[in-house]
């Protein structure tokens, strides 16, 4: 049997790696993928606590998180296609229309 804290620490490590990827990536698609990585890390913590407490609410929350992530991916990739069409670049540094 694996202690719950191991799962939670792994979840925190994956979340931190997602944050680092979010900071360092310049490609807008890679930034979007790092957001998905953070969502996955949170899901892992949800399932670990759900199993450790014997309460299934956490797993249902994970299902909702996955559904929202799917909707987010559809809309976000539509926005990315629009940006690529208008700017001819996927670099986030080039998307600076609102910058002073």
């Amino acid at each position, binding site marked *: 049997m694996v202690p719950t804290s191991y799962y939670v620490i792994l979840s925190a490590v994956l979340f931190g790696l997602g944050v680092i990827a979010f900071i360092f990536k310049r490609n807008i698609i890679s930034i979007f993928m790092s957001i998905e990585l953070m969502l996955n890390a949170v899901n892992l913590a949800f399932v670990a606590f759900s199993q450790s407490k014997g309460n299934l609410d956490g797993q249902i929350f994970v299902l909702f998180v996955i559904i929202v992530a799917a909707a987010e991916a559809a809309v976000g990739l539509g926005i990315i296609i629009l940006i690529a069409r208008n700017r001819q670049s996927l670099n986030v540094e*080039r998307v600076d229309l609102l910058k002073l």
Partner: protein
Amino acid sequence: MTPQLLIFFVLAALAVVGSLSLILQKHPIHSALSLIVVMVALAGLYLLMGAEFVAAVQIIVYGGAIMVLFVFVIMLLNAGIEEHTNFSKLAGYAGVPLGIALTGFIAAAIARSTDTVHAATTGGTIASTRQISTMIFKEFVYPFELTSFLILVAIMGAIVLAQREK
């Protein structure tokens, strides 16, 4: 070392290596394939915990649908190796230390709270798919129906955003 612990460490190492590879790869398609490795490793961890339904949904929805969408868009846009423009000085010097510090704080805080609240081990047999479906369609039926509306709105939004204006 029990077999469960061994499997946990193998899958955890796979997940961490996959996410490191996501950061270090320069080409978006390589990052996407690394992310698929992470998701499959997480599905294995869910199976190890005894959450079969979540593992199946993780493989089907995340590894199947969402990542296919990502790979499709990367290939559609012909995304190349990311170029390095004027990199933020603050992100360059303070990014990794602050990220590691954040990881440490989160891990320390949550791990301490798990020890005090409940010292149980993970890996029960409580999670049957039947119980999950009963809960979804009894207690959580209203949010569940709302998610179908959310998916509908997302589909319409994606179509409106991606269509070429005349």
